[in-house]
């Protein structure tokens, strides 16, 4: 790929981010002006200054999404291995699609009823579990194509040499899967981070993640505020990506 194409592609990728950032500091944008006529930080001040505990929400969101992503990635990695080596692999795997054959909004409405009955309603644990329902099967599908005969024989080798299952994971499977694990983790982190419907219905607003706090602003008539809320939603995952790039992106990633 030529250097020019590369730069053009990167420019294309960065455009939405630049566009949203530009609008978030704008005021008065009559047609056909290409850029807003005035610039102001007033929206940022209004939202950051006016929303008590926004920082706590960020912490809560990070904690929730990290827990969901860690649990789901770990569990689905472990479970998908047992599915992949099962004789009826395809039939098992088809179960993983179940959560996605149901319209998400209705899923939330149905689950709300069951979570109330189970007494998990309005709690951090309840929201965590609800998010596992949508992230875990995704992880299983994600890892389903990872397992193959080559890995299996490597695992066998560890066993023959007297290693335990734990050692097989620690010394062989996890190092080989590192890239895939990180990619999956990031995907699941994002799903959890942006989750609105279930988190709101199951948490009854008592688990006020950042997404819950600013989500409604994205539907605001004030486009500058909507753009600002969009930035607030997007920037933390981008920062995570940036922090992790050394770990994730120097690796060869196996889907």
């Amino acid at each position: 790929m030529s250097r020019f194409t590369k730069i053009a592609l990167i420019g294309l990728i960065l455009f939405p981010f630049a566009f949203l950032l530009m609008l978030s500091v704008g005021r008065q944008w009559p047609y056909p002006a290409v850029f807003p006529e005035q610039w102001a930080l007033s929206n940022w001040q209004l939202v950051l200054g006016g929303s008590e505990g926004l920082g706590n929400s960020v912490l809560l969101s990070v904690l929730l999404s990290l827990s969901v992503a860690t649990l789901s990635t770990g569990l689905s990695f472990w479970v998908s291995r047992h599915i992949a080596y099962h004789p009826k692999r395809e039939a098992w795997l088809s179960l993983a699609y179940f959560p996605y054959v149901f319209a998400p909004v209705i899923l939330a409405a149905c689950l709300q009823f069951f979570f109330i009955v189970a007494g998990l309603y309005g709690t951090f644990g309840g929201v965590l579990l609800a998010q596992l329902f949508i992230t875990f099967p995704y992880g299983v599908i994600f890892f389903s194509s990872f397992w193959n005969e080559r890995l299996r024989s490597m695992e066998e080798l560890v066993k023959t040499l007297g290693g335990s299952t734990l050692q097989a994971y620690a010394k062989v499977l996890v190092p080989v899967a590192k890239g895939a694990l990180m990619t999956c983790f990031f995907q699941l982190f994002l799903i959890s981070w942006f989750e609105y419907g279930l988190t709101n219905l199951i948490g009854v607003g008592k688990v006020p993640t950042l997404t819950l706090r600013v989500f409604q602003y994205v539907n605001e008539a004030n486009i500058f505020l909507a753009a600002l809320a969009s930035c607030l939603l997007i920037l933390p995952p981008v920062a995570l990506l940036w922090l992790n790039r050394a770990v994730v992106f120097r690796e060869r990633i196996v889907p």
Partner: protein
Amino acid sequence: MQQRWAAYGGRSLFVLLSAVPIVAGVSYALLYSLGLTGVMAEGFTLVHWQEILGDAAFWRTLGFSLYVAAVSIGVALGLSLALVLRSPQAYTKGMLSFFIYLPLSIPAIVMAFFIFQLLGKGGWLSRVSHQLGLISALEQFPDWVNDNYGIGIIVAHVIMATPFFTIFFANLYQNERLGEYLHLAATLGANGRQRIFRVAVPVLLRRGLATVFLYFMFVMGSYEIPLLVGSQSVQMVSVRTIQRLQRYNLGDIPEAYAISVAYTVLVAVLLGGLLWYNRKQMGRA
């Protein structure tokens, strides 16, 4: 012994976390649609089912959802395969391997807002066209959002799906050692076209089928994007369901559940067809 218990444990957990909630959910929805549960339920009735099955708009909704998903995924697959096959290494090494991940961090609701501000008649592209003298008034800008062909919805999904599939295929390319195969095919006398369409594309698509199908279902069930940039005359299924579920008439709620069950059946049939096809292909191979 311990191994076997671990296997049982793993699969039980799997069933518990993926199948159980959904079976419970679908049963609940089915009961609701038949008037057997809910605060305002009045006993068994098929009225709600008759209502939706006899409604032409409902069938149009299902058809439109399929159409949007098929076109979006089709275009995104075409673009991402073209990108990856042109330069297979570009997305796993170097600068692009970082930047290509960035679009994944844009959620659907933000994408909807972005598309609305970009492609609308008063949007950014319209403004640029005006400055360039291509149009003299915003009315002349084409209908790209809230249109009956779902252009805005499709563009939004393509922008979201293309980077995802690009990462996916670039990794698959490496993992499957596709480069070596293509080299082999070349030595056996395959020309460029044949190498792409007979070897590379089929291998990538077949290996990626599960993920492609999963994404297809995401697009079909999407809500925020069609809500903001779709047309009211032809709705996607989630938009219609929510309208029944949350708008004004509590008597419509069972219909929302009936639509969901019907939608579930449709997707399950598609999934069944896919698995059957997959097994047939595997059998052949």
